[in-house]
């Protein structure tokens, strides 16, 4: 299949690393508030956004994810006081790295979403989904030689 071909009924698959204390709670609140967002995301709860090792992201792309969002508490709000500052440094580098090797920047995003920011969660997920939908399926880094 050519790299640009979009299969029928394709839907973006997006992996969201959500920190336990803010973003995951924010996602919960979004649901409780009946705020609709695209069902394209798979949420993976992590204790802190600082737990997200960049290799998790590469692995996700290998296994067929179309986009990754790493989300955590706003700077200053980290449950562990400084975890997300480490995340910020790490992903400032990581995001540029991924863009550098040819992953479109929309596919590798970070956002701070607090436990109270249900509308923001809704908005971010909607935006990210639409951005990735526009890009089409990701085949870069994909390890698909095992499918046959």
């Amino acid at each position, binding site marked *: 299949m050519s790299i640009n071909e979009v299969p029928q009924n394709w839907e973006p698959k997006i992996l969201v690393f959500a920190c336990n204390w803010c973003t995951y709670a924010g996602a919960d609140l979004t649901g409780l508030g009946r705020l609709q967002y695209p069902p394209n995301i798979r949420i993976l709860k992590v204790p802190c956004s600082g737990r997200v090792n960049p290799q998790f992201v590469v692995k996700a792309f290998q*296994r067929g994810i179309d986009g990754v969002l790493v989300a955590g508490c706003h700077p200053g709000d980290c449950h562990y006081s400084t975890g997300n500052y480490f995340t910020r440094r790490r992903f400032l580098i990581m995001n540029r790295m991924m863009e550098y090797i040819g992953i479109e920047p929309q596919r590798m995003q970070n956002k701070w979403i607090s436990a109270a920011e249900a509308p923001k969660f809704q908005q971010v997920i909607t935006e990210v989904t639409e951005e990735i939908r526009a890009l089409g399926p990701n085949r870069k880094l994909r390890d698909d030689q*095992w*499918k*046959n």
Partner: protein
Amino acid sequence: MLVIQKTKIKEILDTLAKEYKVIVPAKDGDTSKFIPYGDNTEMLLEENVQLPPKDVFFPQTEKMYKFKSKKNTMEIENLPIEGGKQLIFGIRSCDMKSLDCLDQVFLTKGTDEFYKEKRDKTALIALSCTKPKETCFCTSMGLDPQKAVGADVQAYDLGDKIGFEAITEQGKKIIASIEGQLSEESVVVPKFGEFKINVDVEGVPEKLKGMFESPMWDDISRKCLNCGACTYVCPTCHCFDISQEVRGEDGVKYRCWDSCMFGEYTQMAGGHNPRPTKKERVRNRFMHKLNYFVERYNMLLCTGCGRCINVCPVNMDITAIIKQVKEAE
């Protein structure tokens, strides 16, 4: 001898490509290796390529079978072994010899079907060498750079022409299929240039048998980085690992090249490792090449291609080691 202008070699390959998947030595990015011949292939006929042809017969990663597992059940599904009729053009004496070594491993004492399938279906046109590289030493290993063992056709580098001589029945058929494009000429096969490396391997395998405990191994292994570069560029190194990839219920069992330089290679469940440090690993590699294989199959596991010398980051030079063995008391 039947010859063709080097500039017209592509015409012959095009003819052969009708019947075979043709594989040629060519540039590949900043390196060179044997790759399927196509319109844009940058062929490399002046010197041997940097990577050996072993992956044509023994790919770095090769699927063996699929399996499916649910709860406590499993199914095994055999995969068709890949491999249609193919032909390697331009394989050198050293690499032809390496196939002889690999044949011993994969075709004797139990036939390895994955290897055999590809080996049986591959015709071989060997190409003579005229100019040895800095690191070449095939003559020291008893090879003739202008006459390969086991080739179907021996081709000769005649400067601006290439000459062909059929060796086997299959070779005769190959020549017959391209005969129209060749012309008969009387030629003189040029002598090959001087080898920079000459080493005498006579008696080394026998002598090594008594040198397992030699302090020499401590000395030569110290600078080794235990990377697998030498083993992966070696045309005769054939160690492999068997592993698997699993996606949900589906799994694929594959084998892939492994290297005796890696610690994990001999690491046993439970923690014991019979070759725990670089000394044991380096010793095993050179003993395997120069003694164990000779004991087992009566031939050296080194063809003098010089690739390991070429890539080793710390200049672990097998010829230097042979000399050291020779000189040892």
